[in-house]
C-alpha cells in the first residue's frame, strides 16, 4: 500500500515539487505587488510622512490624500478657521489642520467617470465589431480575406502616436476633439484589429459542426451564432475584452493630446494633481489606487471565463 502511495506518477507532480512551485509563485506575486502596496500605503500617509527619509513603514494612516484628491482647498487664516462652525466630515477636519478649507469638489470624479465611459465604451465596441468580423473571416469566403486581414493587422504596425498629428487635425475639423465619442472611436479603431485577430483564432477553434447542428435543429445562422458560437467563445471574448480595456484604460498620449477639458480621462489628469500646492504625493497615490480598481474588478469578474480554458467539448478532434 505504502509502495503505491510513494510511487511517483509521471503526470501527477509530487507534493514537494508542488510546494516549491507554490513558493515560487507566491514570492513572484509578492515582488510584483511591492509597488502596488507602496502606492496604497502612500495614499494613506500624510504629506510629511510620504516624503520623509528614510521612508516610513510604520505611520498613522490618514484619509488626507483621498480628501485632497476629491476636493479643491483654499488657505485661510487660523482665526477664520477657528470662527467656522464645527467640521461636518473627516475631510473638513483634516483640511483645517493644514489651515485650509474645502472650496469645492475637484475634477477627479468627472475625469474618472470619463475614463470609465471611454474605456468600457470602446472595449464594448471593439469586442462587438471584432467578434462579428472574426466570425465572418472564420466562416465565410470573404473576397481578399488574407489581404483584408493583413490590412487590419497593418494598422498596428506603427505606434499609434505616429499618427497623432493627423488625428489631432482631423478631430479638430470634425469637432471630435475633447469629446467622449471621439475618444471611444479612436480607442475602438486601435483595439479592433487586436480584437479581430485574437477572436478569429478563438472562433477558428470552434468546430463548424456546432453551427451546422444548430441550423439543422431549426435555427437561423444568426441564432446559431448567438446561441451556440458565442457561449463557446466566451473565453476568447473575455480575454480580448481585458486586453482592449487595459489599453483604453491606460492610454495616456492621445488622451493628453486630444482631451483637455470635459472629456479628459484620468491618466492625463492624475499628474496634474501634483502641482496643486506642493508635491502632494498622497493625493497622487490615492488617484492611482482608485484608478487601479476598475481593471482589478473587471479581471476578477472575468477570471472564471479566462481560467476555464478552451472548451473540452463533445466534439473530438
Amino acid at each position, binding site marked *: 500500500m505504502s509502495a503505491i502511495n510513494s510511487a511517483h506518477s509521471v503526470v501527477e507532480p509530487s507534493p514537494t515539487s508542488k510546494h516549491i512551485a507554490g513558493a515560487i509563485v507566491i514570492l513572484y506575486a509578492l515582488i510584483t505587488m511591492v509597488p502596488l502596496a507602496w502606492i496604497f500605503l502612500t495614499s494613506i500617509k500624510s504629506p510629511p510622512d510620504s516624503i520623509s527619509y528614510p521612508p516610513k513603514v510604520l505611520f498613522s494612516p490618514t484619509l488626507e490624500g483621498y480628501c485632497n484628491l476629491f476636493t479643491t482647498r483654499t488657505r485661510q487664516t487660523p482665526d477664520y478657521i477657528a470662527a467656522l462652525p464645527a467640521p461636518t466630515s473627516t475631510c473638513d477636519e483634516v483640511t483645517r489642520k493644514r489651515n485650509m478649507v474645502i472650496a469645492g469638489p475637484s475634477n477627479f470624479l468627472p475625469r474618472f467617470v470619463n475614463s470609465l465611459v471611454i474605456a468600457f465604451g470602446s472595449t464594448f465596441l471593439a469586442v462587438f465589431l471584432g467578434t462579428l468580423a472574426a466570425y465572418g473571416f472564420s466562416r465565410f469566403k470573404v473576397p481578399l480575406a488574407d489581404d483584408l486581414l493583413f490590412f487590419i493587422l497593418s494598422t498596428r504596425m506603427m505606434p499609434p502616436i505616429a499618427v497623432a498629428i493627423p488625428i489631432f487635425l482631423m478631430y479638430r475639423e470634425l469637432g471630435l476633439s475633447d469629446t467622449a465619442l471621439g475618444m471611444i472611436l479612436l480607442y475602438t479603431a486601435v483595439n479592433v484589429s487586436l480584437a479581430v485577430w485574437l477572436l478569429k483564432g478563438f472562433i477558428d477553434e470552434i468546430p463548424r459542426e456546432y453551427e*451546422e447542428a*444548430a441550423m439543422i435543429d431549426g435555427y437561423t445562422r444568426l441564432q446559431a451564432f448567438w446561441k451556440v458560437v458565442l457561449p463557446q467563445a466566451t473565453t476568447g471574448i473575455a480575454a480580448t475584452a481585458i486586453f482592449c480595456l487595459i489599453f483604453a484604460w491606460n492610454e495616456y498620449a492621445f488622451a493628453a493630446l486630444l482631451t483637455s477639458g470635459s472629456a479628459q480621462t484620468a491618466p492625463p489628469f492624475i499628474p496634474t494633481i501634483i502641482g496643486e500646492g506642493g508635491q502632494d504625493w498622497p493625493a497622487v497615490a490615492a488617484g492611482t489606487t482608485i484608478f487601479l480598481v476598475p481593471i482589478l474588478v473587471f479581471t476578477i469578474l472575468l477570471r472564471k471565463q479566462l481560467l476555464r480554458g478552451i472548451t473540452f467539448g463533445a466534439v473530438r478532434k
Partner: protein
Amino acid sequence: MAEIRIENLRKQFADFTAVQDSSFTVGDGEFLALLGPSGCGKTTTLRMIAGLELPTSGKIYLDGEDVTFNRASARDIAFVFQLFALYPHMNVRKNIGFPLLSQGLPKAEIKARVEETAKLLQISHILEKSVSGLAGGDRQRVALGRAIVRRPKCFLMDEPLGTLDAEFREVMVHELRELHNRIHATTVYVTHDQHEAMAMADKIAVMNHGIIEQFGTPQEIYNLPASMYVADFIGSPPMNFLKFTAGVQRGSRTVSVEGVEIALPEVHQDIAVGELALGVRPEHIRFNDSSALRGSVYGAEYLGTNQIVAVETGKGLLKARVPADHTFRIGETVGLELDSEKLSLFDCASGRAVKSSLYTEARHG
C-alpha cells in the same frame, strides 16, 4: 416520415467534382447506406440533402417537395454528425431539447418529449449530466436523441460510429438498426465500413469518385456487383478476378481462360475481343483435383470455422474460402472448380459487369 428523391445531383468545388450526376430514391421508412472510400462524395451528398451544402446542379425532393435551395432549418431533417457536435455548454437535457426550443414549444411539452426520447434510448439517468464527461456510447445516444426528439422527416447520419472502438461499434450497429425498426424513419447513413452498411441498410449506394457505382439491396450489391469496383470494394476478401483476353457472344455459356473452358451464366451481350475479367467470390471456389484450372497453394489463413486459401493460378492469385478441416501445404498443386452459377464477367475497359442470365434472373425473377 418521407421519401427522399435525388435527381442528377452534382457538386463542383473549384476544379474538383465531388458528386457527379447522382440520382436515387430512398423510399419512405427505408434505410439507405452511402458506402465508399473517403473522398468519394458520400458525405457531400449527405450534406446536400441536409442543406449544409448547395448543389451545383440537380434537384432534391423531400416528400415530393423541391427543397434543393431551402435552408437546412426549413427542411425538417435531423443530422447526426461524425463527431456528434453536442453543444458543450449545455447538459444532456438541454442538448436533446434544443431542436424543440427552436419550434417554440411550451416548456412542459419539451420536458415530456425529452424524457420520452431519453427513455427510448435508455439515457434517462444522464439527463442532467454535462455532455463533456460522457463516454463515447452515451454521446452517441445523446446525439441520436437530439435527432429523433423532433420526429423529423428523415435522419441523415455521417459516419456516426466512426469514432467508437470496434467492440462497441457492433453494439451500436445493433442498437441503430433496432431503433430504425421501431421508429421507421427514412434514414441515409454514410459509412466507409461495408460491414456497417451490410448489417443495417435496406439499400446500399456504393460510391466512387463522385459516382454512384451501384444502388441496390445488400444482397444485390454482394451477389451481382455492377462493376469491378463494387466487386472489389465489397466482401473480405473481395471478389477474385481472373483476367483474360477474349470476346464473347450473346448466348455463350462458357469462356476460355487461357485454354481452360469455364462455364458461366448465359451471356446476354456481345463483347468484342478485349480484356475481360471473370469474377468469383472466395466462397464459390471448391478444390477438385480433376479440374482443369490448376494452381499452387501460396498461403492459407486459418479463421476458425473456415480458412482463406490463396492459390497462384498463373492468371492471378485466387483466394478461396473453404472449410477449415483440410490442411494445405504451401506449394502443393491443386485443382480449382468455380461455381458456374455464381460467376460474374466484367469488361475490363469499362469496368462494368457483362449482362448475363445471373443478373437478369435475379433482378426480375
